[in-house]
């Protein structure tokens, strides 16, 4: 645009950056999640690598203006590879005083605060419990930061004054103003969000119009006022060539299940009861009814898994989704599925526990429950996804192993990767592997009899669907005779069956990929061994320390039961093994017990993922310790 059109164009300095972390924070009703996601989609569309972290309270609408109601959305985007949502942010958008209070501690020194000043009036300051007479935007609290006070509420009202909208609608558009301003700051186009607005409010043109106007007004505000003098440019990342989409872990899990259904030829059945943070998977799959996906919202967690067991028995790819408290309720039925030797995929999106704990926060404390949380000797496969997009591959593999080996599989995800998102170079359908399934259709005994528990070379029994002619038989939770499956109380038979069921699961390791370092050498001084969502923080920390010349390595486990068959040997190659976990040391126990290596743990149970900085510090400390 020419200066002549607008009078004097202000001078703007352009700052190039490799990566930037932005935190949007406001009241639960301020639309911060939507704002964050729109910013994310635009950054992704523009070609940045990124990682996001939605962080919201478990109250749907806590009292307005209080710290309990603060909802945040964090995005780390860059021109380099990004594995975490970032330890600390460069920019904090604070829609009110409570948001500033909650999120200021993790703003980088010298970072930018964009404050909606009407959210800092006397009432809001007192709701946020700032002492009387203290304005955090003035004075020592925000001395070390660049504070932009913007009257977002008033500016939004003004730009929508002639739209004939009610106070509520105008109020609801202020997040678009913020988004427009941020787009200006980071030199991002408005197109993506404009088309989103058009789609979302297609049936309400006046609302679509208001949102689009507020978005543009925010951008113009950045462009035209003298307050903002710096624009930050983050170039597109040099990601591997290919087509990408942005995806959350829960979404990737849902799609992974659909892919497994298609590649196995088995109809998909999900029996589930809503629970945070797993509900999205049920919601997402409910949309695919046209594709034959059967979602069954059960009366409780137990009915969720039991209906899935019934569907598995009838020959479907059967899944149940839950989080910790629901997992506890499902354990008896999981024992039944183990005893029956029926395929079943149990998805546990972990959250802070025990009990209701921290329902919207993340944790990895269900690992030992997944491993051992059943009565009797009841081993099942346990797998864990390491990032949002890895949920796709891992849950697909869980389905494959489950139906090919006639065993329940527990798939562990957690709130961090379930809600977080990242760009995903998704595969073509033709690149996704097939899952081999066969149903028995004739008697399998040598004498022409039916042997429902006769095993193949992998110790796997046949899958027999009710409705198959000539194969009627009964199965159940009582101990079975080896081969025939008839009820059997003989002492020696019980031990045989216990060992067979365990051996079947153990044998799966024969065909699993070997464990190998993500980065670093197999004889490094220190191994950082991780599982699940700690991947990003470990990966970033180890990568940075490798560049700094330290002799370390990173191994990340997808399979926890059984472990990769070379894991013991691999562990012995390192002088030290450090296991970071968002629990009190659960993988640590398993590793020490099984391989007798003097591994040490790094524990964090705060409902928050590890930061790269704390990870690096711990690694260095461990390296230096005797």
């Amino acid at each position, binding site marked *: 645009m020419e200066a002549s059109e607008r009078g004097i164009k202000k001078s703007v300095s352009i700052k190039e950056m490799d990566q930037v972390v932005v935190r949007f924070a406001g009241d639960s009703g301020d639309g911060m999640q939507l704002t964050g996601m729109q910013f994310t989609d635009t950054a992704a569309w523009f070609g940045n690598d990124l990682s996001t972290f939605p962080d919201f309270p478990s109250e749907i609408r806590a009292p307005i203006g209080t710290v309990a109601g603060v909802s945040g959305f964090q995005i780390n985007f860059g021109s380099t590879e990004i594995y975490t949502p970032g330890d600390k942010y460069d920019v904090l958008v604070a829609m009110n005083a409570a948001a500033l209070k909650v999120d200021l501690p993790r703003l980088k020194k010298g970072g930018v605060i964009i404050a909606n000043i009407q959210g800092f009036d006397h009432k809001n300051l007192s709701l946020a419990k700032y002492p009387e007479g203290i304005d955090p935007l003035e004075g020592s609290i925000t001395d070390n930061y660049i504070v932009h006070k913007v009257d977002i509420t008033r500016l939004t009202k003004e730009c929508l004054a002639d739209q004939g909208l009610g106070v509520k609608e105008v109020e609801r558009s202020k997040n678009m103003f913020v988004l427009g301003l941020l787009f200006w700051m980071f030199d991002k186009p408005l197109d993506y969000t404009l088309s989103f607005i058009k789609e979302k409010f297609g049936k309400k043109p006046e609302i679509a119009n208001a949102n689009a106007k507020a978005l543009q007004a925010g951008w113009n505000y950045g462009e035209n006022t003298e307050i903002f003098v710096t624009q930050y440019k983050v170039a597109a990342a040099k990601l591997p060539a290919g087509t*990408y989409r942005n995806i959350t872990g829960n979404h990737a899990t849902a799609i992974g299940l659909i892919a497994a259904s298609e590649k196995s030829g088995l109809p998909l059945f999900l029996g589930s009861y809503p629970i945070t943070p797993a509900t999205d998977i049920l919601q997402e799959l409910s949309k695919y009814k046209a*594709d034959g996906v059967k979602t069954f919202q059960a009366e409780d967690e137990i009915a969720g898994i*039991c209906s899935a067991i019934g569907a598995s028995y009838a020959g479907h790819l059967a899944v149940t989704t839950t989080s910790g408290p629901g997992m506890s309720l499902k354990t008896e039925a999981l024992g039944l599925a183990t005893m029956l030797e029926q395929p079943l995929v149990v998805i546990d999106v972990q959250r802070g526990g025990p009990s209701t704990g921290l329902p919207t926060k993340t944790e990895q404390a269900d690992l030992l429950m997944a491993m051992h949380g059943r009565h009797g000797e009841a081993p099942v496969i346990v797998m864990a996804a390491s990032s949002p997009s890895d949920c796709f591959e891992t849950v697909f593999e869980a389905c494959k192993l489950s139906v090919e080996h006639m065993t329940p599989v527990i798939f562990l995800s957690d709130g961090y990767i379930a809600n977080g998102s990242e760009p995903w170079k998704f595969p073509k359908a033709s690149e996704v592997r097939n899952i081999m399934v066969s149903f028995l259709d*004739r*008697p399998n005994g040598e004498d022409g009899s039916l042997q429902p528990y006769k095993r193949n070379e992998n110790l796997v029994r046949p899958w027999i669907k009710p409705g198959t002619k000539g194969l009627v038989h009964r199965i159940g*939770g009582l101990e079975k005779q080896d081969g025939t499956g008839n009820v059997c109380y003989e002492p020696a038979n019980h031990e045989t069956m216990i060992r067979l069921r365990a051996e079947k699961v153990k044998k799966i390791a024969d065909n699993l990929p070997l464990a190998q370092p993500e980065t670093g050498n197999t004889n490094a001084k220190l191994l950082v061994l991780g599982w699940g969502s700690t991947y990003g923080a470990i990966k970033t920390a180890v990568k940075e320390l490798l560049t700094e010349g330290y002799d370390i390595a990173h191994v990340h486990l997808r399979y926890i039961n059984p472990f990769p068959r070379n894991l013991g040997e691999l562990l012995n190659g390192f002088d030290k093994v450090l296991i970071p976990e968002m629990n009190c040391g659960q993988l640590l126990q398993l590793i020490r017990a099984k391989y007798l290596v003097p591994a040490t743990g790094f524990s964090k149970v705060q409902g928050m993922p590890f930061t790269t900085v704390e990870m690096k510090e711990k690694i260095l400390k461990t390296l230096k310790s005797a």
Partner: protein
Amino acid sequence: METIATNEKIKLTPKDFAPEADVKWCPGCGDYSILKQVQTIFPDLGVPKENFVFISGIGCSSRFTYYMDTYGMHSIHGRAAAIASGVKAANPELSVWVISGDGDSLSIGGNHFIHLMRKNFDINYLMFNNQIYSLTKGQYSPTSEKGKITKTSPYGSIEEPFNSIELALSAKASFVARTLDRDPKHMQSILKKAHAHKGTSFVEVYQNCPVFNDGAFFAFSDKETKNEEAIRLEHGKPLLFGNNDEKGIKLDGLTPVIVNLQEQNISVDDLWIHDENDKTKAIFISRFFDTTFNDVAFPRPFGVIYSQERPVYEEILSAQIEALNASKGRMSLDRILSGEKTWTIL
């Protein structure tokens, strides 16, 4: 099996439903009768043997599954209804039968029980009610009468029992019936009706436990008492009972009253005519249990108390899938994998 390649209908017999396994209930258990009646009517239902599936929970009743030569799963305590729902949702072609007891259905499985009735899968639900926990050797159950002395209530149970028929009706069951072990013909006719009904058919079977609760229901089957203590319901027939059918029931406003036809000179036509489709009256009938009306106790009703077809879960589910499939079409896996917004890096 391959040897039977023709479409010729094989005539099944009750023996075809009796597996080799020994039946291990106590001698004299009412469960034997139920097993016998089920095996007797099954050949006539017109269902291929391999399409029958029994799902049971835990308890003496639930061993039933092992004694039927059909497909079956003896599952875990209280969960048969939930498992059966999954079986039926996955394969609506199967004839699914749930076998459960009073504890299995109404205590540990109470939640699944009410929700199955509400959801109305086309499942037949037989609840063997012996008013006692037998497999654990004699503790009171949720249907045991108040004051009952058992091992866990040595001074008498202090709990109100469930009225299972009233509970099933309130949970929106579309078919509710009661029968008893000692009346084979009646049971057979009820089982056939339950099978014929499309929707969840709840059948309460009064079943004698000779070891821990012997004779709990004898009043309803003993010659001397049954005509006074029990009333047989038939659709379109008046509510008559008594040794000589001399007694009847009629509705006086909202109060059921027992009348003596001869003594009060009342015509049979003036009596309450049983209408299986009338839910309001079915609820009244269900309360001929431990409720008295004007201090008068009523005879226990047997037969189909309520029957009204309404759409079944698995068909609505399939219809919704088909309709959406027709209007929206199946999405290719490629389309699902890519989602709506993608970008390409060259």
